C-alpha cells in the first residue's frame, strides 16, 4: 500500500457508481487504480457490469456518482473524442465503407496529421499485426481473425496510452483466440500501453493479464495477479468462479495457530486455513483445488485430519486423471492426479482416505 502513491496511478476509479434506471445500481462502489503499462482484465459473469465500467472509462456512459481519473485528472466531463483512448470492440466495428487502410487512417485524419506521415503510420500499424498486404481490402473481404487484427491495429495507430478491449476475441474459435491472445499481450507490453481488457473467459484472463479484477454483481470481488487469484481466492465466489474447485460446507469449531478446525455437516472434522472467518460457530464454505488433494498419508502431517472417500468415477484425460469421489455426502468432489508412471489408477467402488495441507484448504464465507 505504501508504495502505490497517488501519482503512480494512471487510471483510477474512485467510489464509482452507475445506475441506468435510477432503481438498480449496476456498478456499486467501484475502486480501482492501475499503474501505467499494466494489463488489467475485468472478468466476471454476464451482466456483472464489466462493459459498463469500460464505457464509463471511454466516456460513452456517465458515472452516476464518483470520480474517474486518467493520469491524475478527472475525466468525468471530457467527451469521448477528447480522451484519446483506443478501443477494440467485440464485433470489430470496422467501417464497412472504408478500406483497411482508410479505417486505420481515420483516427489520424481527424487528428489532422499530414498525408505522408499518415501513410507511414498506417503501414507501421499494419506491420505490427502482419497485415500490410491487406491495406486495400474492405473489411467484408477479411476473415474474422484478420478483422480483429485490423481492429487492434486501428486502436493502436494513433498511439494512445490507454487501450480498452471489450471481449475482442469473443467471436473467434479457440485456436485463433490463443494466437491472438499471445499477439495482444506481446504488443501491449512491447508498446508499453496500459490495457483494460474485458472477458468472461477465465483462461484468457489468467493467461494474459498482470492483474485480474473479478466482477460480480457490480462489485470487484477480488483484484489480484492471476496466480494469487487462483491459489488464494479471498471469498467463495472467486474460488468457485476461477478454475475448478471443491466445496464443502460446515461450521467452525475453533481457530488456533492460524488453522481452523471445521466440522462438516456430516460430522467429520477437517483442517483449513481461515480466510474470512474469524470465530468459532460461524458457518463456512471450505474450498480445495482438485490438484491439492492428497491420497498419500505419508505426505501429510501426522495429526492431520483425513476423510473417507468412495471412488465414483475414474476419467483418463491423457496428461491427468480426473477422479470423482463421494466425500462427506457430496457426489461432486473431484481430484486430479498427474499421469506419472507410479500413479495409482483408482477403481470405482474403492474406499480411500484423502487429506490436504491445511494451507491448501481455505475456509471462506458461507
Amino acid at each position, binding site marked *: 500500500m505504501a508504495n502505490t502513491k497517488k501519482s503512480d496511478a494512471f487510471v483510477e476509479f474512485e467510489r464509482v457508481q452507475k445506475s441506468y434506471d435510477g432503481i438498480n445500481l449496476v456498478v456499486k462502489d467501484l475502486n480501482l487504480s492501475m499503474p501505467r503499462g499494466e494489463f488489467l482484465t475485468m472478468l466476471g459473469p454476464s451482466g456483472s457490469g464489466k462493459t459498463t465500467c469500460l464505457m464509463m472509462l471511454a466516456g460513452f456512459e456517465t458515472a452516476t456518482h464518483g470520480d474517474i481519473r486518467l493520469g491524475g485528472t478527472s475525466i468525468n466531463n471530457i467527451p*469521448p473524442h*477528447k480522451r484519446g483512448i483506443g478501443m477494440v*470492440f467485440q*464485433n470489430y466495428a470496422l*467501417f464497412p465503407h472504408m478500406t483497411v487502410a482508410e479505417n486505420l487512417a481515420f483516427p489520424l485524419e481527424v487528428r489532422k496529421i499530414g498525408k505522408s506521415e499518415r501513410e507511414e503510420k498506417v503501414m507501421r500499424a499494419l506491420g505490427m499485426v502482419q497485415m500490410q498486404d491487406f491495406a486495400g481490402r474492405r473489411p467484408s473481404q477479411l476473415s474474422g481473425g484478420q478483422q480483429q487484427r485490423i481492429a487492434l491495429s486501428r486502436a493502436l495507430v494513433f498511439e494512445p496510452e490507454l487501450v480498452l478491449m471489450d471481449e475482442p476475441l469473443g467471436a473467434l474459435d479457440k485456436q485463433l483466440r490463443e494466437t491472438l491472445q499471445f499477439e495482444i499481450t506481446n504488443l501491449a507490453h512491447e508498446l508499453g500501453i496500459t490495457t483494460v481488457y474485458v472477458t468472461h473467459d477465465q483462461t484468457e484472463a489468467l493467461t494474459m493479464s498482470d492483474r485480474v479484477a473479478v466482477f460480480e454483481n457490480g462489485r470487484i470481488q477480488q483484484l489480484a495477479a492471476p496466480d494469487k487469484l487462483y491459489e488464494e481466492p479471498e471469498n467463495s465466489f472467486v474460488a468457485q468462479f476461477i478454475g475448478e474447485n471443491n466445496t464443502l460446507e460446515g461450521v467452525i469449531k475453533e481457530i488456533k495457530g492460524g488453522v481452523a478446525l471445521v466440522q462438516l455437516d456430516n460430522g467429520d472434522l477437517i483442517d483449513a486455513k481461515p480466510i474470512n472467518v474469524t470465530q468459532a460457530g460461524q458457518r463456512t464454505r471450505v474450498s480445495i483445488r482438485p490438484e491439492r488433494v492428497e491420497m498419500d498419508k505419508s505426505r501429510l502431517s501426522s495429526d492431520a485430519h483425513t476423510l473417507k472417500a468412495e471412488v465414483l468415477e475414474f476419467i483418463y484425460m491423457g496428461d491427468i486423471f480426473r477422479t470423482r469421489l463421494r466425500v462427506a455426502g457430496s457426489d461432486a468432489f473431484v481430484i486430479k492426479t498427474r499421469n506419472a508412471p507410479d500413479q495409482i489408477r483408482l477403481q470405482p467402488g474403492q474406499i480411500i482416505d484423502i487429506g490436504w495441507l491445511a494451507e491448501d484448504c481455505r475456509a471462506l464465507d458461507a
Partner: protein
Amino acid sequence: MSDSTANGLVLAADGTPLKRSLSRSMRRQKMRAFMLVAPLLIFVLLTFIYPIGVMLSRSVQNDIVPETLPETVRVLGAWDSSSGDLPNEVVYAAFMRDMSVAIKAKKHTRLGSRLNYEKTGFSSMFRQSGRKMKKLDPVVDAPFKDKLIKIHKGWGDIETWKTLQTYSGLYTSGYFLNSVDARMTPEGMAWQPEDKQILLKLFGRTLVMSLIITGSCILLGYPIAWLLSNVSPRSANLLLILVLLPFWTSLLVRTSAWKVMLQQNGVINEVLVWIGLVPDGERLILINNQFGTIVAMTHILLPFMILPMYSVMQTIPPVYLRAAKSMGATNWTAFWRVYFPQSIPGIGAGSILVFILSIGYYITPEIVGGTKGVFISNRIAYHISSSLNWGLAAALGTILLIVVLALYWAYDRIVGIDNVKLG
C-alpha cells in the same frame, strides 16, 4: 469419381459431362419455380405489359389515314407538292371514292379529328364536307375537283393536300415531335408556333419540381428516420405508426385538406393574418401554384422516403459511432464520415422511389397545382380523356418512361444500383 476428367471436361459418375447432368437435375427444380410464378406472370402479361405495349405503339401508329383513304394515299404519292399546283383530277376522284366509303361507315369524322391535331380546321372541314359529299355519286358526278372546292374551299388549299401527303404513312414520328413542341411539316421538322410550345416546359417543370420534392423529402425524412432507428423499439413503433398514418386516409382527402390549409382564406393565411405577420389585403398565394404542389406532394410522398431510410439505418449498429468517437472524431465528423456514408443506400432507395412516383403523379397537382403547378402527367390525362389525342398521350408517356429509365441508368452509373436497399 465425379472429378474424373476427359478432354478437360469434368465428368459425373456415369460418364456424362458434369455440367449437363447438373443442368438436367436442376431442370425439374427450375420447372417447379416457374410454375409458381406462372399465374402472376400471365396476369401481368395480359393486364399490364400487353396494354402498355399497345398504348406505347399508339405513339407511332398512323394507320387511320392509309386505312380510311387507301386510294387517295396511293395516288397522292405521285403528286409533287413543291410544284405549287393542286393535285390533278385523279387524286380528287380517288378521294371522292374513299370518302363515300368512309362516310357510309361514318369514319370520316374520326379521320378529321386525327388530322386536326396536325392542322386546325381539318375536323370541321371533314364534318361539313361529309354532309355535302354524301349527296354526290363517285361515278356519275365526275369530275370532282371543282365540285369539292366548291363544297369547302379547303380542298382548294395546297396545304391541305400537303398535310394529307405528309401523314399518309402507316407510322409517324409526328406525335413524338408534337411531344417536344415540334411538328412535321411537308418541308420537314419545324417548331410549333410560340403560343403552342408548352410541353417541353412542362417536362422541364415536372423534372425540376420532382427533384425539389425529392430533395425536401430527404431533408425532412432523414432526421425522422434517424430518430426512428435510435429510440427504443416501443417508441419507434409508435413513431412508425405516426409516419404511416397518412396511408390510412385517402389520397383525395389528404390533398383536399391541403386545399383547406393553403387557400387564401385557409387556415395558414388566417393564422398569419391573425398574428399580424401578413396584412389582410396581402394574403399569401400558397395554392394553385408550384408552391402548393411541392408542399402537398412532399407531405404525401414523405413516408416513401422515410421507410427505406429507416430500414437501412436500422442495420447500422450504433457501435460505429462510438468507434469513431473513441478514435477522436467529433460528433459531427463521426456522423458525416461514418454514419452518413452507410445511410446513403437508404437515401438512394427513397429518392428513386419518391422521384419516380412524383414524376408521374397526377391527382395532387391536378387539385392543388392550378395552371402553374401541373405536371406532364396532367397533360397526358388531358389528352387521354378530353382531347382524345391518344397518340400524343402515348408519345408523352413513352418519353416519360424513357426519361425515368435514363435517370435510373445514370443513377446506377453514379451511385450503383446495388447500393440501393429497400429493406
